[in-house]
């Protein structure tokens, strides 16, 4: 394989296996239920069924081979573009400008690991579907290509420094290395919400699939239902809750270990390399200048353990922002301590941000949530309780809810603030997880200031900074101060010639 990628070339030949496996897996996933159905239900010979499955697999392999033959990629040095040709019947060409590349992912799943190849994925800041996915490429070529893709602009601008250095580049000592013990702590203290939804989705999925299987084997639904209910009454509710809690923690731990096992970050010439993963190893290279919003969060437990979760948000275009896409453009770094966080911040933002003048919201911040989240539900509850005798016994709970709820709103009010200095805008917020978001003024795309007419006399208003990776809001601030800040940021964005990408 030539090392500078100036001529069109194919993927590794073993890529055919990876592509074929990929498509067979996809077909199987879509047709597993009908196949099972046919297998158990059909009265005819199962021979034809097997033939059919075999034919499907053969077709998948043929298509994969054609796909492999047609898939070529190369670097156009003159135009600074990476070009991919693909398509079996129709010819598609994807052209990516090198300076638009946001991150390069070098991944290895189980199959790729067995064969000894890597998958390479290029993410651009463009609209969806403009990314390139190379399924199989050997290790050397992958890292070579990555260097070419990410460092091209830099290498060109300072040609005097030897190019070879960047090619033979040996990874420096990792800046951050998360040990298994730290991961254990992370797993026990974070992402409860995500795991909860995952558990819920899994639960729904199981129920749906169980119904399929029951249909399939003609089990009597009532028998199953009554035995499940019997099981439920066997254990008391408390035990079920405890079991659920433990499952939640277990899921959390497994997820954390699967995703972030052996998480390492190292600094290369002009990029940061993040690698992690238990079975499927994931390497992500990003250009620190292209990070739009840097965020870290910490809750009470994590504070005691000196633990932080960071995330780096990159530009997200695309009209329909689906959750999945947003996830893809956010890099999570879990389990760093305060010193490591500062080290990372220094790499991304040049120096550790210092909090400048701090702005706090007006007490009117409390009004809306108090009304909609406390008073309104409690009033509705009381009306119900007065009319229905069964609920009346629980009327005391309303008071507990009021006190707890008000405390939480008060905490969120105390935490909601924005600190501004010449180089950084730092926003903190949160109730349990305290989040800090940091942006540089040159990442601002647009600014919105708004005010309700009844806040005019008390000089209160809201601020929203639009960045390519989402909004940063500051609510119920002093409107005169907000206007002053807006003018200051506009001055910085319009007079500074710093680009945002």
């Amino acid at each position, binding site marked *: 394989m030539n090392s500078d990628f100036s001529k069109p070339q194919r993927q590794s030949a073993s890529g055919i296996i990876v592509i074929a496996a990929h498509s067979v897996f996809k077909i199987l996933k879509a047709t597993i239920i009908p196949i099972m159905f046919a297998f158990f239900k059909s009265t005819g010979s199962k021979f034809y069924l097997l033939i059919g499955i075999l034919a499907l697999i053969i077709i998948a392999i043929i298509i994969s081979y054609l796909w492999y033959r047609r898939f070529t990629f190369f670097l156009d040095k003159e135009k600074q573009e990476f070009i991919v040709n693909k398509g079996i019947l129709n010819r598609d060409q994807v052209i990516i400008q090198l300076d638009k590349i946001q991150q390069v992912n070098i991944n290895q799943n189980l199959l790729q690991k067995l064969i000894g190849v890597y998958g390479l994925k290029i993410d651009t800041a463009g609209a969806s579907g403009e990314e390139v996915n190379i399924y199989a490429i050997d290790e050397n070529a992958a890292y070579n290509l990555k260097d070419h893709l990410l460092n091209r602009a830099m290498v060109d601008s300072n040609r005097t420094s030897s190019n070879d250095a960047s090619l033979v580049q040996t990874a420096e000592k990792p800046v951050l290395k998360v040990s298994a013990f730290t991961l254990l702590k992370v797993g026990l203290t974070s992402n409860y919400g995500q795991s909860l939804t995952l558990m819920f989705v899994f639960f729904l999925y199981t129920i749906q699939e169980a119904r399929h299987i029951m249909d399939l084997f003609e089990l009597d639904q009532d028998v199953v239902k009554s035995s499940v209910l019997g099981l439920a009454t066997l254990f008391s509710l408390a035990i079920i809750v405890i079991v659920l809690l433990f499952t939640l923690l277990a899921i959390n731990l497994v997820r954390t270990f699967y995703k972030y096992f052996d998480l390492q970050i190292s600094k290369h010439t002009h990029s940061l390399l993040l690698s992690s993963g238990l079975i499927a190893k994931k390497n992500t290279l990003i250009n620190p200048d292209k990070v739009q919003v840097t965020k870290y969060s910490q809750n009470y437990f994590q504070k005691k353990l000196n633990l932080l979760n960071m995330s780096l948000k990159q530009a997200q275009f695309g009209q329909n922002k689906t959750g999945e896409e947003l996830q893809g453009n956010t890099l999570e770094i879990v389990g760093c301590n305060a010193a490591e966080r500062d080290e990372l911040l220094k790499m991304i933002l040049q120096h550790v941000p210092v909090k400048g003048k701090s702005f706090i919201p007006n007490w009117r911040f409390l009004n809306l949530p108090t009304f909609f989240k406390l008073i309104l539900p409690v009033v509705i509850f009381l009306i119900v309780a007065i009319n229905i005798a069964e609920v009346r016994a629980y009327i005391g709970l309303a008071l507990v809810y009021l006190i707890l709820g008000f405390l939480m709103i008060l905490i969120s009010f105390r935490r909601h603030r924005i600190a501004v200095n010449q180089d950084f805008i730092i926003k903190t917020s949160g109730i349990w997880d305290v989040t800090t978001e940091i942006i540089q003024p040159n990442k*601002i795309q647009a600014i919105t200031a708004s005010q309700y007419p009844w806040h005019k006399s008390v000089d209160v208003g809201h601020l929203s900074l639009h960045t390519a990776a989402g909004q940063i809001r500051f609510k119920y601030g002093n409107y005169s101060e907000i206007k002053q800040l807006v003018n200051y940021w506009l001055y910085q964005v319009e007079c500074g010639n710093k680009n945002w990408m």
Partner: protein
Amino acid sequence: MEMFTNEAIDINALPKYEEIALKKPHQDYWKIICLNLAICFLFLGLIAGLLVFFVAKITPYSTLIFSSYLALLIIFFFLFWASFKKRGYAIRAKDVIYKDGIIAETTTIVPLNRIQHIELNEGFFSRIFKLGSLQIFTAGGVSGHLKIMGIPIEEAKNIRDLILNKLDTIDTTDTENVI
């Protein structure tokens, strides 16, 4: 003011966006809003009328339906009038300012060097009244977009050309800096 001590500029001497006199949308644009609303309510009224006439179950409620229809009509006209009165725009040397809102007053400012692309739209009614609307897109997602409606078409074209020219000069200076 001791807000930003390590910067040699006086924050109070910076140009103030809130003091810029904003241009109102053209008066004819109100006519377009009225036309659009009228068409919407005509349809709604037609459906309501048909229902009242032909569905026996609904007929007793005709006064209720009619009064709520009237109330909706008045509320909508009032809201649109309020929002029309609040709208205003200004093009400065280095940014675009747009103010709108129905109840709250929202001012959005997009620096020219953050504009990705511009769209000039002319609707059916807009063409009759020789008006157009300018859409300004940034990388800041849907919330960072500006849509300035009801600008006289000649002015809209001028603004578009002005911004495009500015974008070009920004681009060329950028590349010069790099080289």
